[in-house]
Each structure stands twice: as structure tokens, then as C-alpha cells.
């Protein structure tokens, strides 16, 4: 699915919707995002893959929601009032979104500062399992003034 990689030619700026998972900063290309909702009461889909958090009804349309904590092998946690679901545009896949701990600002990054995902594994505190999960989902790492931002590729989120 890497043909969808939304990385722009060097030197272009990219707007990223950022969010937190287990304290870490992640982001997705804002152009892929349809909306962000506070509704996090997911209806479980038994027998679905572990990362599938459940289903969510947004104005009559059923969305599948991926629990990113599970996907990144972070310890499971129930959604709290800070939790949000980021829903993606239809161009990404059939209706779906991701459950995150909290959303943060929209950050504008210079795509030339984006480090290829294979080299940018600066966070040594991730387990190998977590690293493996990250490799498929991350487009790259972007150093922000105060921390690192992991840019995710939503196209790959539902790939087995």
C-alpha cells in the first residue's frame, strides 16, 4: 500500500493532525482526516483481529474503529473523557477511524525534516514487538522542537 504514501517532495510543508498514545506524539496527514469525534463508546466485534476496537455509529454510518493502543502493543486501557476517535476520509478505505488517547494541535512540518521510518528509530525504549508494529504503520519520524512526531500511514492500518 505504499503507493499511497502522502509524503510530499522535499521542502513542502505538510499539515499533520497530532494525537497522543501512551504519552507519545503521533500524527496523520490532515488531508486524510474526515472528522474527530468524542464518541468513543465502541460496539465490540467479537472474533475480529485484536486491533479492531469495535464499531461506531456516526450519523447513521457505521465506522470500524482501530484501537491504536492495541495496534502498538501498549497496555490496554478503557477510553476516558480525553479519548477521541479520528475518522478518515472515504478515499482512505471503507468508513473507519482510530481510537487515540487524546488529540493535540495541528502541526505544520517541513517534509524534508521527515526521517525515513527505517532509520529514525530514536526511541530506544520500544520493545521489538512495538518496533515491528510501528514499522508497518509509520511513514516516518519528524523531530519537533520538543519531541519526536511519528507520522502514521492510515492506508496501512487495516492491512493484516
Amino acid at each position, binding site marked *: 500500500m505504499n503507493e499511497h504514501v502522502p509524503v510530499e517532495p522535499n521542502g513542502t510543508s505538510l499539515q499533520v493532525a497530532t494525537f497522543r498514545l501512551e504519552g507519545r506524539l503521533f500524527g496523520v496527514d490532515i488531508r486524510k482526516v474526515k472528522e474527530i469525534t468524542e464518541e468513543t463508546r465502541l460496539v465490540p466485534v467479537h*472474533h475480529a483481529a485484536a486491533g479492531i476496537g469495535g464499531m461506531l*455509529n456516526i450519523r447513521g454510518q457505521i465506522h*470500524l474503529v482501530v484501537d491504536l493502543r492495541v495496534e502498538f502493543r501498549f497496555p490496554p486501557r478503557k477510553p476516558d473523557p480525553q479519548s477521541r476517535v479520528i475518522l478518515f476520509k472515504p478515499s482512505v478505505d471503507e468508513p473507519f477511524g482510530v481510537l487515540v488517547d487524546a488529540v493535540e494541535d495541528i502541526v505544520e512540518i517541513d517534509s524534508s525534516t521527515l526521517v525515513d521510518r527505517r532509520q529514525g528509530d530514536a526511541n530506544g525504549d520500544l520493545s521489538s514487538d512495538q518496533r515491528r508494529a510501528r514499522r508497518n504503520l509509520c511513514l516516518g519520524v519528524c523531530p519537533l522542537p520538543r519531541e519526536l512526531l511519528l507520522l502514521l500511514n492510515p492506508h496501512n492500518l487495516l492491512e493484516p
Partner: protein
Amino acid sequence: MAEERSLLEEFLEESREHLARMELDFLLLEKGEHTPDVINRIFRAVHTVKGSSGFFGLVRVGGLSHAMESVLDSLREGRLQADGALLDLLLEGLDRLQALFADLEHSNEFDTWDLEERLRDAAGKKSQISPILAFEPQESEVTAETVAVTPPGHHLYRLNFDITRMERERSLSPVQLIELLQSFGQIHDGRLETCGNQRLCEGLPGGLLYRILFSSVLERDLVAHGVQLPENAVEEIGPEGTLGSDLGPGDSPPPLTLASHAIPTPPAPPPELKESSPARAVPPVSAPSADAESHPASKEGPATARTEQDFLKVRLDILDRLMSLAGELVLVRNQQLMREQSSDTEGRRIVQQLDLVTSELQETILRTRMQPIGNVFARFSRVVRDLSRKLGKVIEVKSSGDEVELDKNILEALIDPLTHIVRNSCDHGLENPEERLASGKPAIGTITLRAWHEGGHIHVEVQDDGRGIDRERVRAKALEKGLKTPEELERLGENDILNLIFLPGFSTAAEVSDLSGRGVGMDVVKSSIEALGGVVEIRSTPGQGTCQHMRLPLTLAIIPSMIVQSLGQAFALPQINLEELVTLYDEEILEHIESAGSREIYRLRGMLLPLIHLSEVLETAESFDEEARQRSVERHRRERLARWEEIRSRRSSGHVESWSLSFAVLKIGNARYGLVIDRILGTEEIVVKPMHRAVKELPLYSGATVLGDGQIALILDVQGISRQFGVSLETRTEVAVDTAACGSRLLLFRNGPQEQLAMPLETIARIEELRPADIERVGNQEFVALQGVSTRILRLEDRMEVSQPAASDRHYAILPRGATSPWCLLAQELIDIGEYGFELDTPSFEHAALLGTTRLRGHLTLLLDPQALAPENP
């Protein structure tokens, strides 16, 4: 050009309608109905196809339809008889035309010469038509019908255009011309005429005359002005078909001959016209007072006129979108209904109105997708005709309920299974005329197709009056193919034998003919009907015929469902799978649910219903194996006991507490099982939404929906759940009560603590008591010396899924009668010997030695067949 493409598509669609209509009419002809009406109708259809094909340069379509027209002409003039051979030829022509239409783009490359030649030979005149020009110039004709369909108050004109000049001098293409004409009137017919044998593609120095039969409210001079023709190129045709002006266009091509095969109703003088259609009172068309109601001919006038006026072609995706919007509206309505349970009467009234309108809207939109089943039935006349000629049989097709409407998707999916069934009837069901006469039946076999509404379903039946299904042959076949063992067959009832033909790999035809039995069996019919949420059943009386009955849902988009709760979550169970709901209270739960090995059974009016706990299936990711099922059954049994103890103790201390357990009785074909759920929430009409592709493969669900309260409910796949739990559902409800020992003397005994067992007394030689110390072991076999004979010991728990006996210091050895080598069955406890009247039920699990299950002395009892338990039948 886009418009040209859409015109072509319209032509294609129209021609298909003509061809379909023609097929039916040909079959009418064959039945001896050569009324002028039928022949004229066919003639008109071919003629229209021919005419329009010229416009699009479809040489082969034109050539072929022209050849067919010649035959029809001879038919009409009585020079030919509509016998089988001729109709074969005409139908072949029709098939070829359909093939040409299927690939219109390359149709000119098809070779139809041979067929055209044969048609012309049949018509009795070798034609000298040039191979390039497929049809000859001929007069544009006005038939009584054309005049009749001219809307009241319209004038009918014949317009003569020189297309070549028009294109060159005014750069007006034929398509633009047609659009122009349609903007102020109606085109009834068109004819392209060339002079001489020129290739159409070379450009025509001599001009290309396009004659159009056109009606408009405008006066002649205005029409001429509108299309910029000299006034003499516009001929007005009077109310009786007379030409108001017989002037041709000033620069018209060489005189046109009236071809000998043209429609013999040329622009006719009034008296003749009236004679040619005496049944029809044709009112003067131009008379504005003419009442539309009094136009009898307009009803069956050229299809073109009708299609334009009464039908509108709508893109399917727009309908689908409309359908899902209506679905959303239903959801909004449901949500509103739930909110409005307040006391606000005015608000409630409005909501009720919204409710009504929404329901009606939904129904109406659903109806746009509906098509009469007659469309499908009609094609079988042809199928049967061809088959019966091949098979040397005489078969008539009758149908009723043609007007019954079905969802387009269902209708399309129904074609293949129906075709298969009809072919089967022709091939295997119906006999030769001689055979039929010999058995006192009319020589003509009949296949009856029926459709009707009943109980919110569509019922479709295919019945023949043939020889019926020979159950003995079905039995023999099932044995031969190894689909069933003799014992299993022995236990099957008459209806169950018939149902064997639905098993994969079954075909009773002694030899596989090229008509049916080409590898697609009745199992495919069954599975395709079931895929539609339908059910297929077969009934057959030997010597009298066979009837296959299908029950189908009206639509697939909106399904009535029961909403249930499990694990605090709502699920939808389609009503179509739901037979009934059972709720047990207090002691009933303990008494009526029996644990037999790895099965939990509830006895429902004589039927043994295996139970599946939905919550457990949901929570267990992997599918169940034997061991898991056993554990589950044991766990539920313990839980029930513990719960009951708890409730009893609380009740004794004064608490009022009730205990209940609910399950839904679900059906898959003839099989049933009970799905234990936490709670029943109600029923709702749900709009089925497909599962997201990432979870589509999950067997438990067939879709998802949003309920009236906005909650998401997953739609349960009844078959998927039973597969996940792995419980065998071979629930043959009426198993062989006749073959079992009904009302006989039985020995009742126990081996393990759970099951009560029984054996017919006549199968037992004697019973002896023995102690564990008496048992000797040789290898892994056990023996006991009984009356000086070393007798092999069999333990039931080694042969069947039954509970293990507790350790005991005393056993009973049951010795069967007529054993080939001495053996005995161990029993732990003898209960009774006595006369018992009972009915056998299908066991929920199959074992050769299990005759069935029944309820004796208040307990579920397994009736054993010692013959099948014998050591030589492991």
C-alpha cells in the same frame, strides 16, 4: 459521440424488448395461434429492428432481420406453414440476432450468410439482394396501428430528408436531426433509402434518403420550416392513412419501388384499412375530440410508443442510493418514534404521520426495484420447447402469478436454479408421449410454474405431472455414491429420501445427458436459494409428478429481525431464520435441559434441539472441538445447579426471585438449534449494511445495522454460529418412526450417570451380573467368562459420546441375541423392563448404533441398536 452512443443504447434496449416479445410470439405461432395479430406483431418487431439497424449501419442485423421478414411475409400470405422446422429456423434467426446484439460493435463481422440463405430459401425466393445492401429500398409504410397511436390532435407527416446534403450543406447530423424532430413531435418510424448498390461507408454521391414518419401538433408549413425542408418534402398523412400530398422532395432519388416483401398494408385507402382491422375502431386521429380511452390499439401498439410514454429508464445506482436514503429515513423515524413516547399528543400525531409516510416511501422505492416474475417465467416457454423437441417429448408450460413482483436481485439470482429445475423436469420428470399414454395420462406433459404472495414471502413452485421421483432409485444412488450408509437410509423417512437429491454429488440420471446433470446438481439449486434467504422443498408422488417449492424473501435490503442481547450488546437475528422463542422458568431449566455427552439438548414438542450459548460462542475466539463442547456442557450444567441452589436458599429466606432462560429456535433448512441469549429486546425492521471489508470474513456476522435508538447491532449469521460451535445439525425431524420399534418392550438401564439408555427386549438374549474382578484383559480387550464361554466386553463409553460410569463393584452384562461372536455390553444400573409406547426423535448426534432418542420415565433416553454395537462393526 455521446448522444449517438445513448441513442444506440436506446436502440439496443428497444430491440431487446422486441426480440423478447418476438420469442413469445413465435411460441404462440407454434401452438397454432397464427392469428394475423400475432404475425403482424412479429412482423412489426422485425421490421422496426431492421429499420433502425440501417440507421446505425448494422449491416448483419439488417440482413438477417430482412431475411426473417421475408419468411414472415410468406407466412402471412399463407404461402408457408408455421411448422416446427420453420419455427426452428426462425428461432435460430432470433437467437442469432440476439447474439449480434450481444456484441453490436463487432456484429458486422459475424457470418450470417448461411442462415440468411436458408431463411430466404424457406421464404421461397432466392433473393438477388446485393450482399452489401442488406435491405432494399422500400416505401415508408403507414399501418393502421401507426395512425392509431398518433396522439389525438397531432398531424402525421412523412418527412423526406437527403442526409448527405443535409450533412454537407447544413452540417446537421442524423442524430441532431432526430433530436430536433423530437423537440417538437414524435418519430414513429424511420427508413433509410439509398439508390443503387453503394457501400454506405463510401459516401453517396446520389444522396441518401431518410424518410421519417413523424407526428406533431404543428401545421405542415411550420414543420417544414422547423426542419428547414422545402414544403413539398413534408407529406401529410390524413386521418385514414391517405397522403395529403404525394409529392416527393424536389431532388429525391430515383423512383422508389415498392418491394414485394414490404408490409402489405401500404398507405391504404380508407375502406381497405378498415377492413384490415375490423376489430378496431380507429378514430380519426386528427380529430381533437378523439378520446384516449377509446384507442384500443394504443395498448398494444408498437412497443416504442409505450416505452416512451409509460416508462422511464433510471440508473440502478441512483435507485440504490435512493434506497439507502430511505433506509436512513427509516432510522431517523425509528429514533423519533422512540423519543416520542411522551404525552405530547400533537407531537405524537405528527410522528405517526411521519411514520406512515416513511413506510409508504420505503415501500414505493422498494417497488422500483421490483420486477414481475413473469419476465422469468416467459423464458421457460422457449427452454422447454427446445428441450422437448430434442427429447422427443411433448411438453406444455403453464404459468400463474406472472404479475407477482420480486426484487430485481432476487429475480436475477432465481433464473439459474429455476432453469435447472425446469430442465430436470423435462429430462427426468416427464415421460415420452407413448409412456404417458400407456400409464393413462394425456400425451402432453405439463410443467406448471406458479408464484404467489403468502406470509410476507414469495412462493414459487415448479410442478410437473411426470413419473415422480423413484425413492428406491434415490436410495440406491445414495448408497452407490457412498453418501449414506444402509443404516442411515433405513432410518430415513419418505420425505428425507427425497431430500437426498439435494446432497452434493447426487445425480439420479442413469446416464448423464447433455441437458441436465452436467455436474451442476440440485445441491447448487439448494445453496443458491438458501443464499437468497429462501428455502426449497421437494414433494413427489410416484406416477403423478414432482413439485419443487421455493419460498423467498421479498427483498434483501430491509429485513425484519429480532433484536436480542448477549454480553450487554445488541444483536439482530433475521426473522427468516427464527422459528420461535422459548423461555424456561425455575425448575423447568433444570428439568428440561439435558446434558448428553458434549450436547445440551432441549426437548421441543418431540424434537431434540441442541442448544448453543451465544455469549460463549462470542467470547471464544477459536471454533469448538469435541472437548471444548464437553467442557462447555459440563460448565453450564454446574452453573445451572449452583444457580438453582442459590435461588432456592434465597427464596427460603423470603426473597422473591425468579430465574429464567431464553433461547431462540433457529432454523437452517430442515435443521434447528436453540441459541441461548441473555434477553430479548424486541423486533425491528433493519437496513442491512455490509460489514467493513476488514471484518467481512468473520463467520458469525452477515452484516451490521443501526437500530432505532442509534445503537449498532451486528446481524448474526445463524449458520456461521452453528458451524463455529460445531454442533451437528442433521436434525431430520421425522426420522423413521415406522422402522423403529414403536411401542415395544424395552430394557431401561444406565451406564454413565447422565444418560438413560434403552434397548428393545427382543434384541437381548440375556442379562448377567458380574464383578470387576471377573474381568480379564487380553491386550486392550476385556473378556469375561459367562456360562463357560469367554465373552468379549464392550463399554458404551468407548463407542459413543456418553458419560463415564463411576467406579462400582457390580456390573451387568447385556448379551445380545444372534451375535456372531460372543460379546456383551456393560451396564451400571438396570432400571426397568416394560412396555413403552414412544416416538423416536432424531438424535442430535449421529451414531450407527443410535436408533434415536426419546423420553421415557421423565428422562431423555438413548435407544440403542445392539447389532450396530457388535465388535465386528467398530
